């Protein structure tokens, strides 16, 4: 078997997911995380740093949940200025998204294209639509059934980072995958 970086990533992902299954199994009950309609600003790195009570019970991520997807896979890919082509880092993340989505076939997604504020409003809606489509096509190629995918563009209306800087604009040029149905 040839080990490609991609399969290592997959392997790592599977390992992690099963680890979190174990972690969760010992937990009595947890409120399922409902799919969130609004973007989570910055994915919290790890749930381990829960500052308050329950020192013994590890706070886990429910597999197949929105949180699982955001934390363990990543819900956003980023684009270059005025571009909608997928960068290599974006493809790697989308490979992981596709694998996750194949694993949870009941999940439906909405891909939301976003643009930075350095463009006019209507042009940016069109640009965001292109970005969402790039992601949609890639996920479809990787085995996600098209009927599970919808796309929309928010243009420059939903910025992730509101600092008027190159860094902020770079973050705002993205496509976000939101789970709309079927998440745990």
């Amino acid at each position, binding site marked *: 078997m040839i080990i490609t970086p991609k399969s290592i990533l997959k392997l790592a992902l599977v390992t992690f997911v099963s680890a979190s299954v174990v972690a969760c199994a010992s937990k009595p009950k947890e409120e399922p995380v409902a799919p969130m*309609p609004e973007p989570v*600003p910055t994915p919290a790195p790890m749930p381990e740093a829960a500052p308050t009570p329950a020192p013994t019970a590890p706070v886990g991520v429910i597999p197949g949940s929105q949180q699982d997807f955001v934390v363990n896979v990543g819900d956003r890919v980023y684009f270059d200025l*005025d571009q*909608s082509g997928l960068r290599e880092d974006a493809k790697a993340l989308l490979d992981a998204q596709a694998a996750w989505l194949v694993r949870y076939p009941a999940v439906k997604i*909405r891909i939301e294209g976003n643009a930075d*504020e*350095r*463009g*006019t*409003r*209507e*042009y940016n*809606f*069109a*640009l965001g*639509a*292109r970005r*969402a*489509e*790039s992601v*949609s*096509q890639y996920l479809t190629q990787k085995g996600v059934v098209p009927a599970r995918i*919808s*796309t*929309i*563009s*928010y243009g420059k*209306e*939903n*910025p*992730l980072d*509101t*600092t*008027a800087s190159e860094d902020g604009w770079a973050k705002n040029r993205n496509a976000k995958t939101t789970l*709309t149905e079927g998440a745990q």
Partner: protein
Amino acid sequence: MIRNSTPHRPFMIRSLMALASVIASLSCAVMPAQAQEPLRATVNQGVIEPLPIAIKIDSAATNASGNLGTQISKVVMADLERSGFFRPIDPNAFIQSQLDVNVTPNFENWRTINAQALSNGMAFIDGQGRLQVDFRLWDVFSEKQLLGMSFTATPENYRRIAHKIADAIYEKLTGEEGYFDTRIVFVAESGGRAKRIKRLAIMDQDGANPSYLTDGSYKVMTPRFNADSQEITYMALRDDSARIYIFNIETGRQETVGQIKGMVFAPRFSPDGSKLAYSVAQGGNTDIYVMDLRSRSTRRLTTESSIETSPSFSADGSTIVFTSDRGGSPQIYAMNADGSGIRRITFGGGSYSTPVYSPKGDLIAFTKQSSGRFSIGVMGADGSGERLLTSSYLEEGPTWAPNGRYIMFFREPPGGMPSLWTVDVTGRVERAVPYPGGASDPAWSPRLK
């Protein structure tokens, strides 16, 4: 969901014919026999030298905010000042405090304070409880009456009377069509940048009488007036859809425009109001379509895999200009209204978008991006003679005043709230629109009737 907008009230104008003739004969008796250039605020050439004008509307009538005549005078002065053609004289400088609208003024008193024009009037409540304003416009140096008019409306509509007076003065002294008795539909913004609430709103051209037309549960953008009626078309963005609507200001009725597959945005009426041009993004590709509003039949006008959006009809409806990146960067293109004959019209450095034909069709206003800045500019209908009028960190969305001399747009400072501005076609007269909140995507109404 939809709040009532201010209904559009009928308005009465009548000339003070009988009165005017009396005054005319009176004036003749005192008028010095001197040949003089007619009084005129300079338009179209050189640096504008604002014409000093005195405005004095008297009244015994009051409302909650005080004397009606004083309030009307203030509105007229603010309108005229913002046009760039006039320099209203501070009423504290007036020598003659008593003026009778039916008696010729003592012009010497007005020459002394360097007023070149004087508009005096009287506001009163008539027998039917309506507000009536009689006013005259005088050339102080030739001592000639230039206007004698009367306007009537309900007292709460005193600002409309003031705008009508300002329009009459502006027209008489500039020779151009007035534009003060107009409204602006726009997007009222509130909340943080990442969670902005965007509501459809309408207000008078000078920022007064704002009211919301949508409740903020979804984002409204890019409203446009139907030049022919009191209808607005706009785009509504929700989490999972982008749709276009038509909203009637008078009835408050809102309707969605067709069940179009994909994301629909950038709607604009044709000049006669019979058609709607808009963009649809489907499969990542954005093209321009046109819908006949009676039959609801649609036609796709562009078919390239590039972005085509922000359509704008020419005044005669024969041509559509739009933004496209088919050449690699956003540029402005023109096509015949049936989609044939597509040609690029911008060739300057940077990128161009949001083209809007002027009401006369001779100019196109646009947004230009270059060297990290945004500008509002105008150029000939064929793309020649580009002139940039303003520039800042971020500004876009030009819309024309119905007389084609002013452009309103919005400007957003880094990380801040957007606000509305006007600039004239020479770029010399730039003013903030006095609306206190966040505001973007303005669209100027046709003149009210």
